[in-house]
């Protein structure tokens, strides 16, 4: 299992390697744009020197600054500034409808969504940002090990029925990236993202669709079955309803676009048989666009 997670991470890294480290603009502390690391002016975990203090029992010996201690009789401990980074929450739809592909030449939608999630995670971590998976229950973290851990978590996320993110309360000024096929009713989607948007979270919607879902290439007498327990639908001549279907799909696209625009989020569409790089580039642009604000 670890092997598979590692392989997946390698593919994501290869994808992310072509883009410069992604730096999510921190809105709150716009002034201190030091490699995406936002100093808290407090003692804590970080890399910048903050102060020396006397050694106390209980401190780890590794923390002793021997050069400073050698200057006097006292033993000194070096303390570092607590640094905080922007947290980015990624959500990847794991419902049964994502686990579907129309052909052998391209993978399932879920596979593509996971790849994009990890690629994005690699970029973010490389930029020093803290990332977390929405719905995993784990706090945001950074560092290279994080990506591996998240890859494992992603593997373990079981297929659930919900096509929409859980109503988790996110810290203000966090960013959310949502990857899904967004085929749920528009009203549900609207409710779910608006709740996040109202708590000041900024976000990006990436709709991943299979080519067959866009074109409906089937012909003849077909019984369509749902993947999430919907009632089947029998069509005697599928080709005759293709135009109507595509109109409905277009209305779904337009609705999603409208929702995203109304709350100031971005909306991107992606087809699972096209290059993942293109959508990553778009996403990169969307995330860095905030830098200009």
């Amino acid at each position: 299992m670890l092997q598979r997670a590692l392989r997946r991470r390698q593919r994501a890294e290869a994808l992310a390697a072509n883009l410069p480290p992604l730096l999510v603009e921190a809105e709150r502390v716009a002034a201190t744009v030091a490699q995406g690391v936002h100093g808290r002016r407090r003692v804590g975990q970080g890399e910048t020197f903050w102060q020396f203090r006397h050694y106390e029992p209980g401190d780890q010996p590794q923390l002793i600054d021997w050069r400073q201690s050698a200057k006097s009789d006292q033993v000194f401990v070096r303390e570092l500034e607590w640094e905080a980074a922007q947290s980015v929450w990624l959500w990847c739809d794991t419902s049964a409808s994502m686990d579907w592909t129309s052909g052998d030449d391209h993978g399932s939608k879920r596979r593509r969504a996971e790849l994009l999630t990890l690629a994005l995670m690699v970029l973010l971590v490389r930029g020093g940002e803290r990332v977390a998976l929405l719905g995993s229950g784990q706090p945001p973290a950074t560092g290279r090990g994080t990506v591996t851990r998240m890859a494992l978590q992603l593997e373990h996320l079981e297929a659930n029925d919900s096509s929409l993110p859980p109503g988790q309360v996110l810290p203000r000024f966090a960013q959310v990236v949502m990857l899904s096929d967004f085929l749920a009713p528009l009203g549900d989607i609207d409710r779910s993202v608006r709740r996040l948007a109202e708590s000041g979270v900024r976000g990006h919607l990436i709709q991943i669709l299979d080519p067959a879902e866009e074109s409906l290439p089937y012909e003849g007498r077909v019984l369509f079955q749902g993947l999430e327990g919907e009632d089947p639908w029998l069509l005697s001549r599928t080709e005759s309803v293709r135009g109507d279907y595509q109109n409905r799909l277009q209305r779904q696209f337009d609705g999603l676009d409208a929702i995203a625009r109304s709350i100031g989020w971005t909306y991107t569409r992606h087809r699972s048989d096209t290059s993942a790089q293109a959508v990553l580039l778009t996403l990169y642009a969307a995330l860095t666009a905030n830098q200009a604000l």
Partner: protein
Amino acid sequence: MLELGPLAFAQPWLLMALGALPLLWWLLRLTPPAPRRIDFPALRLLTGLRPPEETPARTPPWLVALRLLIAALIILGLAQPLLNPSRPLAGSGPLVLIVDDGWAAARNWPQRRDTINGLIDQAERDGRSLVVLTTAPKGPDSQVAASDPLNPAAARRLLQGLAPQPWPVDRRAALAALEAVTLEASAPVVWLSDGLNHGESEADLRDFMARLRAIGPVRVYQDEPLRLARRLGTPQLDAGSVGVEVERASSEGEDLAVVRALAEDGRLLGRAEARFAPGEARSSVRFELPTELRNEIARLKIEAEETAAAVFLIDERWRRRPVGLVAAGPLALRPLLGEVYYLERALAPYTEVQKGSVGELLRQGVAVLTLADAGRLPAEEAEALSLWIEQGGTLLRFAGPRMAQQGDDALLPVRLRLGDRTLSGAMTWSRPAKLAPFHRGSPFAGLDLPEDVVVERQVLAEPALDLPEKTWARLEDGTPLVTAERRGEGWLVLIHTSANTDWSNLALSGLFIEMLRKIVAVSQGVANVTADEALPPLEALDGFGLLGRPPATAVALDAETIEAGRIDARHPPGIYGRDSLRRAYNLADQVGPLAGLGPSIDGQAVQSFAGRSETVLLPWLLAAALVLALLDMFIALALRGLLIPARLGRGAAVLLLGAAAGLLAGAPAEAQDGDDAFALKATTDTRLAYVRTGIPAVDEVSHAGLTGLSRVLNRRTAVEAAEPVGVRLGRDELAFFPLLYWPVTREQRALDSAAAAAVNAFLKNGGTILFDLRRPEAAAQVLGQPSTALQTLTRDIQVPALIPVSPDHVLTKAFYLMQDFPGRYAGGTLWIESAEGRVNDGVSSVMIGANDWAGAWAIDEQGRPLFPAVPGGERQREMAYRFGVNLVMYALTGNYKTDQVHVPYILERLGQ
């Protein structure tokens, strides 16, 4: 029965169902094909959409035609069509079936069986019962009796079990049995004869046929002349070969019989062809074999003929050549100088040697009798010997001082001069003579002559015209050394020097042994004396000439039976006797000359078995329908779009493989696969193993713990442990694992017997089990307190006496130096086997502790420990890992670290 030329229908009324086919056509046309089923995530967007108009989908006409064809085939098949229907049975009574099942029927048994089955089928269709009469006597009383009228199924069961018997049929008894059958109506009679006349006269046969005709119309089957049974004659032994005669019943046409000589283990020793010219009923073959091989022959057999008379079992009578040493006279008392001693040493390795006086030996029966420098024999002994030689005995004599003193003796091949010739000595000029090379034609031809064999003294033959012919070996100067004369059936051989070292060193050389063997090989075998005792059956031939266990009816063979040559159920052909005395009792010996019944019997025409047989078409039609139905299934799938060409090949292969596997192997194969997979998994890598307790929480901890330990082992030591496996006791093979971790819980059940046996075997063969009680307070209960979980579990396991680990035990230094063995809890005592060092390379087979090691070792998938170690924190966990490493090293490498115990003493001795 409806007949249409070569085709007939047994159930013609079923054909009426063909009339229903048009209805089927109409029904099939109306039903649309089933829709394809496609999973589609965006179903919500499709729901509610309707195509503009709904045209009814129809099955294409050619598919309907195919389905009608399938239906028609099934209907035709059920009407039971027959190709080449055989003649209907005459008469109205039951079918009387007379089957010759003696030895001669075995050659064409499959054809006979086909004919029998055909007749039963016919009787079944005509609704007749059958009366079955088998003509070979059966049972301990050797009786022949006709069955009561049987229904065809019962007759089929009876005749399925019918096999040819290894003895002849008894037609007289069959005739008597037929007299007892009373049938009211005229019944058809079918006689499946074996084509041989078993010593019956014309009149007997006429009586038999007359009786058959009295019952009803008769049909007689018989083998073609070239397929009649043949038999082997009694093998004849000659000086260098085995000859055997093959006899056939009919002398028509040319024929060929290949006879094989086989060893006891079935090895082919020789193969010879016997050709029968037209008009000849007998032909003989001859095997030229070296003596050793000839003595190995265990049976002769006609190739590709499976009858009891085509096999001839060979026993000791055909290979025994006992040699008698006349051990009398004063020299016999000097063990190391006596001639008998040398002869015995030379002969014993290759032949059976008997010692005694002339009279005794002749009574026992020997092939060769050796007389070493005997002097003049008493008159009656000489006479007996002379007679014995005439009958085939070989007398081997050696010269000596006494023979040299006596001139004339009837039992010598040549006339001797009085006195002996001395070739070396203090007073002679001449040198000891060497042997001349053996001339061609001598039995010794081809033997190597050692350089150092010399003859110092010999007796000389009077020159005679026939002396060169009688000479088998000469000295360099041309004087005979070995002379022989044929007398009657036997041989008289004289070696012109002594059998001991007095006159020559020949007796010390290897040549002496070779020469004696050649002389023995020249001799004839002896006929075994008939044992007075009864010989129990050891192995018996069955009707097909195969040796097997004797049937239950077989009884011991006595001399009287052998004399009478009786072969029946009580005395089947085969091997009788004991291990030391094996007597072959052959059918081929006992059946008289073979004679065929001829092309017609008492004017009754005979038909051969190989006639055209009727063919039942039912299975073929149904098979064709099945194939078409499969084709129809594929077509239906293709029409629904479920059959994609790329997947077709794969699918078909999977289908075929699945069908084949399902047919051939069935369920056991699956289990086998599972076992194999487990064995492969367990053996391709070194794996730690734990006992699955059946309690998920405990098993998960065990697995996580051993995973953590495996990771530490991989990182720190040369052990490359793969992912651990859980084993189910009694079901999985334990032998693959050096170490078994066994968490003990109160909830586990006591072991069943299979599990206990597996664990005991594991411990006995060098496995190690670490029992972990997992709670420190449980440790106190190991000793003393009864009814703990551990004691319940190990009730059936042989746990040796235990002691706490001593401070200098290998476990304390197998990899890391450590004195206590903490796990999640510290401080518990680890108990090990007390009697170490004797077995298993000193590795204790059982270790018991209570520190919950797996808990300390356990990690999650991200490598983080699962449980805190109390009270010692991470240091204690590290020590737990170290104990784990030591434990695995101890289990894998045994006691080699024990040597470290001696290091201080070694260093002290070295003076350092």
